[in-house]
């Protein structure tokens, strides 16, 4: 048991208001739900049991995997594009192109998820606006047009909406790093790509990771995008949770699925904390 030094006390004092807020207004109400995941009729000790968890895995194991794969893939793509955007904003040599990019990349951030679902459904459909434009430009024939409204649609929607979010953070962090090393490397003739990955990205790694985790967690909890782009099998866990509640009034399995979702997010957060911890020491 570490002793409570003044610094620890001060730290606790500073964190407490924010923590109290989350505990009081979310974690306490949540605990009722988490207990609900283990409530079953005629279970152990007045109705506790693993039935809901077992049923959740029995019915939705495939969807759990699907969710994890889709969200992880989206997170990686988002990271890649964010580095690209942030990197060009920091290292780009053509001021006009930098200005255009800076003006361009942020727009999707302002569109709420439910509208992202709607606009991409009508944009990515087989006879949607995208294929319509391609056909009009003569790039493809109407016969070649395919619908992207499946898992690809979900990934596209996530990447479209979340990339600006991470890019904004990453670009901000990149802008504040010391230009001296960059200039020095440039004078030594290093290519911009090398500078980006060997000098710039390592210095913004924490910010990038935080952005990725926040995106990951956000995407895990979005319902409207899978619902409006592809609610088929396999689908995202949020769709299953909504279905359990709205179709069966079954909060037990819904909460069990929520727990799985929470564990996935925590797992990713723990990876980050490990890395951050190593850096701090």
């Amino acid at each position: 048991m570490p002793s409570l030094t003044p610094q620890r006390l001060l730290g606790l004092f500073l964190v407490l208001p924010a923590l109290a807020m989350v505990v009081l207004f979310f974690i306490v109400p949540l605990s009722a739900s988490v207990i609900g995941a283990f409530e079953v009729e005629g279970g152990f000790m007045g109705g506790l049991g693993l039935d809901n968890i077992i049923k959740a895995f029995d019915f939705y194991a495939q969807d759990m995997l699907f969710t994890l794969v889709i969200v992880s893939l989206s997170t990686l793509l988002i990271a890649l594009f964010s580095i690209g955007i942030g990197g060009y904003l920091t290292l780009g040599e053509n001021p006009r192109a930098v200005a255009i990019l800076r003006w361009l990349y942020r727009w999707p951030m302002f569109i709420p998820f439910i509208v992202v679902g709607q606009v991409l459904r009508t944009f990515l459909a087989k006879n949607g606006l995208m294929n319509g434009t391609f056909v009009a430009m003569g790039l493809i024939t109407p016969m070649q047009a395919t619908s992207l409204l499946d898992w690809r649609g979900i990934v596209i929607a996530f990447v479209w909406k979340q990339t600006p979010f991470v890019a904004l953070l990453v670009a901000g962090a990149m802008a504040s790093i010391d230009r001296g090393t960059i200039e020095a490397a440039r004078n030594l003739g290093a290519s911009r790509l090398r500078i980006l990955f060997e000098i710039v990205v390592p210095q913004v790694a924490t910010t990038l990771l935080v952005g990725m985790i926040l995106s990951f967690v956000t995407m895990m909890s979005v319902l409207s995008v899978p619902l409006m782009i592809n609610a088929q099998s396999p689908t995202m866990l949020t769709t299953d949770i909504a279905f359990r509640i709205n179709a069966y009034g079954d909060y037990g399995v819904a909460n069990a699925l929520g727990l799985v979702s929470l564990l996935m997010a925590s797992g990713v957060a723990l990876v980050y904390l490990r890395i951050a911890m190593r850096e701090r020491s």
Partner: protein
Amino acid sequence: MSTFLSRLDPWWLPRALVLGALAFVIFGPLANLLLWTVAEKWYFPHALPLEFGFSYWERVFSPRGNAVESLTNSIVVALLTVVLSLTLAIPAGYALARLKLPLRGLVLLAFLIPQAFPNLTVYVNIARLFYVVGLNGTIPGVVLVHTTHGLVYAVWIATAAFAAVDAELEEAARSIGASGLRAFFDVTLPLALPGLLASAIFVFLESLDEFTGSYFVGAPDVNMLPLLLYTAGAGGNYQIASITALLLLIPSIGFMLVVERFLKVDVLARVGR
């Protein structure tokens, strides 16, 4: 002419192509949104709307629709949420980044939970709590709910922002006699400001787009614009959903421009580069 050519670097074509593709990817779906706001009739095989008009704008802005009141509520709540979130997150983020804390990892994880556990099953309990304490149907109630979600972004980003500021700078300030508080406000805070303001933008957007909590805690007394957006969007009423989304764009972009102006002036002045 020759000077023009010599000034033109060989990368202009790929650069233009990449930017063009990016513009298409970003504005294609947005064009779709804009077209729907003024489309009276639009179906296949017509690539563009058959009839344009503003009748859906009239519906959104009909006197009994309360769109203006809802938009005002949304903006007020979003601004209050930003203020509250940052007030809570700045000390917390500083402590998490700089000070030795017991169970630091767990604390950070706790802030992640409101976003990590799908909320559908939790809102009944939250609403129940708010009915008990009498916060239902009040603006403070909605602000509290939005803040618990906004804190995820505010605290995590604030922590990263403070961690990125060199601790030695603060120590240097203190060694020449500045008090701890003074060193924080004069040295650390300005350097962490870009990150903090970025988090303010996310908190603002999160609050502006939130509808489930707003319904459970706010309605029917405090109505927020996203409720209209949700009903129209989920029901497939493209016109009304698009118009509402467009309305929500105005405060979002306005807030961002204000923040950016503030950010640029400030960073330039303080960092003095």
